[in-house]
């Protein structure tokens, strides 16, 4: 058994390495596309990079030299990649700040928001989804299905304003904006934004979980487990949840990747200085170095989330583990 388990770890590690290599390849492609943005944007890149400053011939010449704009395209790309690998995405055209500094200032808010919303999503969507799927057509299911439909169709900004009006303005339970200092204060500040963000995510994950649980509900192994008087707690965990876990993981991973890349609308409504807000401003101002860096960062986050989800598949499903060994 120990040998088999060891072999399994080796194959899973090999799988992870293969996926990491694929991730690097995808990041390379993305970086190329991202870099091409500069060349594809109409007009002289130097003027573009100069931004609102006056495009005097001296300034243009300085920029051309600084960014190596007179080099061949591929050389420019290589230089950009090498710098990016050293954590240098250049400076913002607008503020002159280091792009990496700008991102690291903002990333905390976004991760907080995304993580908080994700926890809420998992804690609410999965249990209610399982119950709805197992009790299909009964009251619990009808309530869960109807409310998830409402949550899906309500626009995020409307929900955000509504929550803000009720809980911040009228009841004054939570602050209407700002991100707070220290854990508890941040938690307090982030609650309304996280709930706003979580509402549609809960709806998505709940529907996936419900569909997965419905598939499990009439399986013989559930009946057989009940017939053996297996405690219902164990039936819910080891039978229903475990067998429904793959589609649930997939959808949970998707919503997490989505909110990690910046929940633009929510950040806007609650005036949070996260990555989403930064992206919107940078795109509007054609602040290309920032846009490039944010796009790379986003790609990295999405790919990492996917990798984690794929590795969790192995943890959950023995069939995949064995298939990996056979391959």
């Amino acid at each position, binding site marked *: 058994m120990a040998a088999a388990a060891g072999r399994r770890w080796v194959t899973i590690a090999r799988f992870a390495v293969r996926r990491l290599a694929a991730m690097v390849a995808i990041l390379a492609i993305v970086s190329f596309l991202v870099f091409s943005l500069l060349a594809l944007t109409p007009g002289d890149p130097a003027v573009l990079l100069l931004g609102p400053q006056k495009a005097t011939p001296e300034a243009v010449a300085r920029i051309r030299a600084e960014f190596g704009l007179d080099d061949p395209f591929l050389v420019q790309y290589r230089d950009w990649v090498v710098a990016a690998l050293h954590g240098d995405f250049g400076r913002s055209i607008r503020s002159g700040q280091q792009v990496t500094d700008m991102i690291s200032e903002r990333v905390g808010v976004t991760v907080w928001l995304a993580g908080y919303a994700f926890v809420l999503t998992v804690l609410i969507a999965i249990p209610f989804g399982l119950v709805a799927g197992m009790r299909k057509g009964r009251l619990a299911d009808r309530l869960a299905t109807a409310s998830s439909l409402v949550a899906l169709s309500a626009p995020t900004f409307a929900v955000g304003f509504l929550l803000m009006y009720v809980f911040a303005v009228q009841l004054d339970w939570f602050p209407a904006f700002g991100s707070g200092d220290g854990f508890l204060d941040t938690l307090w500040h982030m609650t309304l934004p996280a709930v706003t963000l979580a509402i549609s995510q809960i709806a998505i994950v709940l529907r996936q979980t419900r569909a997965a649980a419905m598939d499990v509900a009439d399986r013989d*192994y559930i009946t057989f487990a*009940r017939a053996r008087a297996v405690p219902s707690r164990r039936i819910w965990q080891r039978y229903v949840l475990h067998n429904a876990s793959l589609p649930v993981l997939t959808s949970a991973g998707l919503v997490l990747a989505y909110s990690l890349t910046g929940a633009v609308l929510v950040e806007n409504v609650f005036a949070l200085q996260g990555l989403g807000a930064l992206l919107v401003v940078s795109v509007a101002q054609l602040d290309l170095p920032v846009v490039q860096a944010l796009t790379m960062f986003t790609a990295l986050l999405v790919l990492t989330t996917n990798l984690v989800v794929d590795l969790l598949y192995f943890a959950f499903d023995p069939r995949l583990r064995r298939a990996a060994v056979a391959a």
Partner: protein
Amino acid sequence: MSDLLLDVDGLDISVEDRLLVRAVGLQLRAGESVGLVGESGSGKSLTARALVSLLPPGLSARGSIRFNGESIDPNARSSGHRGRSIALLMQDPFTMLNPMMTAGDHIAETLRSAGRTEGSIDTEVARRLAEVGITDRAVAHRYPFELSGGMSQRVALAAALANDPALLVADEPSTALDATTQHEVLELLRSIQRQRGMGLVLITHDLRLAFSVCDRVLVMYAGSIAETASSSAMRDAPLHPYTAGLLESMPSVEHYQSDLGGMPGSVPATSTVLDRCAFADRCAHRQDSCTDGAPPLVEVTAGRWSSCIRSHELGRTLAAVEPDDERPEPAAAADAILTVTDLRKTYRAKGGDHVALGGVSFSLAAGEAVGIVGESGSGKTTIARCILGLTTPSAGRIDLGGIDVTDRSALGGAQRRDATQRLQCVFQDPYSTLNPMHTVGYTLREALAHRARRVDDRDAAVASLLQRVGLASELASRRPAALSGGQRQRVAIARALAMDPAVLLCDEPVAALDVSVQAQVLALLRTLHRGQGTSLLFITHDLGVVRQVTDRIVVLYRGEIVEQGPTDVVLDAPQHEYTQRLVASMPRIGAGEPQG
């Protein structure tokens, strides 16, 4: 007070207002085994579910179930007696176990729910596996998808028995298994039941199987009990015409029957026959009084109950006659219409190639009926797929009346049409082979349109096709949903006949049908073969079916032919060790008095 372990009285099961099971009574002493036998729609499985309080959602039961003198609520949601003193074993070993848990975990969790302490679990799991004949300790760490069907069923049995129940309810526990495995699992079930002195309620559609395993048998029909008797008494002299019909309908493994039995029609819904004898419409002994009211289950002689009002007078006339009929002389030797030479098929798979067929040769003469017999994995379906051109063989040659059809894609259009016309197929599942959106008439007209020789009057041709398969021409306007399983399979046969084929390839054509309907379809196929000269290539796992329909058989085992010859010769005196095992594993009426 009595020494009854289980006492069911007046059990009704209904969905909303519709009655599905009516007034079922069942008594069982400790250590006794009772078979609950019936076709689909008889209510046998629902009765079993009610015993463990696990009716499907939406169904409810009324009536009394007493277990060891204590009352059980069949509608209870909480476990109660279930699992602790009454265990349930289900049909499909591949769906009964949690795919995410190892075999050992299944047994361990039942042990834990029975209150075993953690320290003793591992050794106890090993002991329980040994009880069901699994001594390889590694099996405890395997997942269900790594186990064969027979192995899974043994693990499930061990898990079901881990609570040491006083009663086991087994719902078709061997139906999904291959014949030889089926035999092993039933033997195991029977020996464990004896050793433990455990009560057993065996649900099955197979009367012979119930006779060979159980002390007593209850025959159910359309939701109520038709007859109850000891296995031996019922086998010798059934009291209810339905029981007699079931016995006659089962194709005998041992000898050829000129009359295949079979009852006309099919099982009605319980709720439509509440005020009459449910079987009357299919009964040869029906009188006017049969439909005057619901016949009560009465004790005809000591220990023998029947719900037929004529049981007394019919008496011995129902006794199963077992004439050793002479098989009619097979047609004079004719030229081969289908020749398969050294057929090989290899599938590429992870971790090495899988050889599905390792060089198979046989032929089918014009007007002959040849059976291909084998279990799952024997390659019999691969042969069918190769012959039909659904897959291309890796090597070998298939000759169909002078056309080399080995690789259909290499044939020209005209030849391919010709090949299709000469060979038609009837598949196993009549529920999925007919397009549900098309009427029967449309389906048949469509098939007629593909025929090479033009059919001028298609409506007349449809009517005559329906007549050939024993269906009324009015059915042409119906859709498959309005037909019974047997009727659907007849339509599927008619569709194949529409092409006027020389060879009819039948892939398990009756395996999905109820016993009484199966006999009708077998009789039809026999008529097509004998009366109309169609050659049959008959693929099946059922030796009884093969005995009745074919002249010659080819026995397939792991992709190789192990034996072939005239049907009667091979089945009466099998030469190869595998064929012997296969023949020995068949439950039969004549043999196997339950010991005990």
